[in-house]
């Protein structure tokens, strides 16, 4: 059947929203990545204290958590597209999707835990 658009467990079940989220999260991720790279270049060679101090700032905490969220969403939209492209058996696809959702949840809480500890 051609005429039935389905969402197949996409992030928001809406192409436009998924797409916008993908783009905005990408920009946040790009900025974060560049901030880290610049920090490492400035403080090269890096030591434990400088690194820990960086994450002790409140803005860095907030920025990191936002970035972590963006990473989770960005990864899900991206990986979801890849999976729905290549994996056609429905049950296998759903199984893998659930597995990935689970791991993303774990990454998220793991990340929060790491950051929390650094305050």
């Amino acid at each position, binding site marked *: 059947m051609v005429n039935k658009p389905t969402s197949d467990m996409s992030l928001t079940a809406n192409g436009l929203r998924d797409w916008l989220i993908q783009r905005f999260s990408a920009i946040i991720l*790009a900025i974060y990545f560049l901030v880290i790279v610049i920090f490492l270049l400035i403080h090269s060679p890096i030591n434990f204290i400088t*690194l*820990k101090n960086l994450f002790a700032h409140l803005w860095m905490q907030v920025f990191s958590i936002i970035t972590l969220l963006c990473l989770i969403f960005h990864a899900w939209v991206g990986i979801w597209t890849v999976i729905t492209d290549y994996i056609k058996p429905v049950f296998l696809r759903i199984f893998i999707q659930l597995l990935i959702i689970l791991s993303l949840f774990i990454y998220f809480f793991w990340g929060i835990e790491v950051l929390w*500890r650094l305050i």
Partner: protein
Amino acid sequence: MNQYKFKNLNFFTIKFPLTAIVSILHRLSGIFIFLIIPFVLWILDVATGSPEGFSRIQSIMLNPILSFFIWLILISLWYHLFAGLRHILMDIGLGEDLTSSRISGMLVIVLTIIFAILTGIWLW
């Protein structure tokens, strides 16, 4: 569509344009980055956990195989960043025509090579 048995879909007979290669590499780098998220989180976890952990990560960097792996991760990140930036620019209507998209695709590859070299110098 069952009435026809065959389709012509043989990758070895299809020419992939530069723009397609830039795109598939974006996808591959994305998958790779997704797969190494736990590794990166682990590095962050250990390196910020204690001074001992930090030195552990530092010593890892000295291992040629692992440092090569980290270099690969960074290359993937650079590539994913540049190719992603190209896509976003095209999304807002910049460089949508064929010639510009070929040039920007080439640029993504060249920039990635330059940054791979710079990153290598920085790492070693």
